């Protein structure tokens, strides 16, 4: 494909019929600079959608950023089509001045950029051996988010000092709502309009969404159209019927916002086999409570643990890359990683989690250590764990 310029035209004239049909790329003029780049046709990257979500292919990625078109998706009424010229955000309730902001208004306020992970609090599957990192915990992704701090907008509308909660409401078909403690809004919540350098993608909330650093994805309301400041939570369906978890003793935990520390080895991992010899174990670790301070690796089924190397810069509430050089002698073994965050929290085993929650293993905020079995023939399989 040659461009339609004088350059392109001379080229076309010059290309004779005996143009070499070789597979040697050095003998064939390639496409000239283009308007928008492409992905190699040899790279098949797929989010593997289910009815309710689609998951980032963690085992196929490198480094710590998620390509925007591979960001995980979880929505409750599909992806709305929003015209950015018509888009408006209403902030009202316990405020001095209820206000409406157009997208261009939001973009004019002082801005901030920050690299952070998002994670759905329902990010766990573990029922069989043939599970990839994508299937086990692909409901997490990382982007550089840019937007205006919600505190900047709170300041503009004059939030009543007696207020304690706010409602965030989306303009999707579910008009998805969550109640959020006002404190988080003042502290570090971002009203984001950009992701990885460009406008937020439709699946991630175009043209604007909340990003609550370290808090479960459902609170980071996408396609946000309204914020109501209040002195009590609204007890929406998402924070009662959903996104609550049984913790034993007949109790259900509500408003469990923070995502606890977690890690996963993404290489080696199902479905990719390995060979005997030197293997660089690779993975990501993250915590909703701050920085990852350590990732520990066991290559002998948990008998001993060693520190992995962390890829700097280690950022607050961000996916952090880790690596660990290992020589595999070919014997069957289990390898695993556990994350430690700056609060001293150590990523638990499934048994520890289950014990702490009265035997419950379903539901949300389930972040157990993930073990991979390395078979003698090099196959790598997930190890579904017994509860007790």
């Amino acid at each position, binding site marked *: 494909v040659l461009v339609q310029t004088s350059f392109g035209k001379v080229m076309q004239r010059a290309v004779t019929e005996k143009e070499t049909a070789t597979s040697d790329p050095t003998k064939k003029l390639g496409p000239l600079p283009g308007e928008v780049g492409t992905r190699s046709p040899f790279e098949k990257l797929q989010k593997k959608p289910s009815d309710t979500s689609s998951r980032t292919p963690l085992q196929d990625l490198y480094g710590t950023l998620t390509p925007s078109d591979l960001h995980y998706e979880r929505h*409750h*009424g599909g992806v709305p089509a929003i015209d950015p010229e018509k888009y408006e955000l*209403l902030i*009202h309730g316990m405020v001095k*001045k*209820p*206000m*409406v*902001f*157009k997208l261009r*208004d*939001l973009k*004019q*306020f*002082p801005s*901030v950029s920050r690299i952070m992970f998002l994670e759905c609090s329902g990010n766990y599957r573990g029922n069989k051996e043939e599970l990839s990192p994508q299937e086990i915990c692909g409901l997490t992704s990382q982007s550089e988010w840019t937007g205006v*701090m919600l*505190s*900047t907008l709170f*300041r*503009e509308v004059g939030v009543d000092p007696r207020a304690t909660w706010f409602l965030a*409401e989306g303009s999707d*078909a579910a*008009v998805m*709502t969550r109640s959020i403690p006002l404190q988080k809004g*003042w502290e*570090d919540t971002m009203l984001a309009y950009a992701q990885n350098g460009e406008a937020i993608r439709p699946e991630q909330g175009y043209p604007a969404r909340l990003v609550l650093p370290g808090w479960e994805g459902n609170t980071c309301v996408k396609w946000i159209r*309204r914020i*109501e400041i*209040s002195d*009590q939570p*609204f*007890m*929406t*369906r998402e924070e*009662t*019927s959903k996104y*609550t978890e*049984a*913790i034993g003793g*007949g*109790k*259900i935990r*509500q*408003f*469990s*916002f*923070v995502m*606890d520390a977690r890690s996963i080895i993404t290489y080696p991992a199902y479905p990719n086999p390995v060979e005997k010899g030197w293997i660089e174990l690779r993975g990501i670790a993250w915590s909703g409570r*701050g920085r990852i301070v350590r990732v520990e690796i066991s290559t002998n089924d948990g008998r001993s643990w060693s520190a992995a190397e962390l890829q700097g810069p280690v950022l607050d509430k961000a996916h952090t890359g880790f690596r660990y050089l290992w020589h595999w002698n070919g014997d069957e073994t289990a390898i695993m990683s556990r994350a430690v965050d700056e*609060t*001293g*929290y*150590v990523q638990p085993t499934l048994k*520890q989690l289950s*014990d*702490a*929650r009265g035997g*419950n293993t379903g*539901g949300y905020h389930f972040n157990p250590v993930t073990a991979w079995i390395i078979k003698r023939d090099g196959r790598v399989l997930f190890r579904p764990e017994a509860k007790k």
Partner: protein
Amino acid sequence: SLKDTASWPQSFGFGRLASSHDIDTLDIDIRPDGKGLPYGSGTVSQGKAIYAAKCALCHGKTGTEGPFNPLVTKTDTASSSKEPGKEKTIGNYWPYATTLYDYINRAMPFNTPGSLTPDEVYSLTAFLLHANNIVDSSAVMNAQTLPQVNMPARALFVPDDRSGGTEIK
């Protein structure tokens, strides 16, 4: 805060004041105390008919068959508290009746959301509360009665007490 606001003006002046029309158009949420509930009302039997016409396809004839989320508790509500989470329905898992109005109104029917009138939503709420053994068949739901409904699951909910550190919760 991530921003040093010392040099900032009192107001940037971006955006405009919201009119009461702006607010009224969007302010559809219903609080547990009933704030936000509109004028109107509905009965169990009205709800039963609307349910059959607009909801049964997805939630089953009696609200237990699916294919989508079960809405009606199969077991009696008392036993549900033994193992919350096994069957998460209105009868054994929903702490506030107002949430039912709010959610049906904003999100259902899934394929034609926002299409129901207040009377229809009150009726469906009455029907689903009755189907879950929470109100009796003569119940009328409106802005006064709905916030009074006591939900069996209410007492089960506790706030999050995780706070990092060495303890696993």
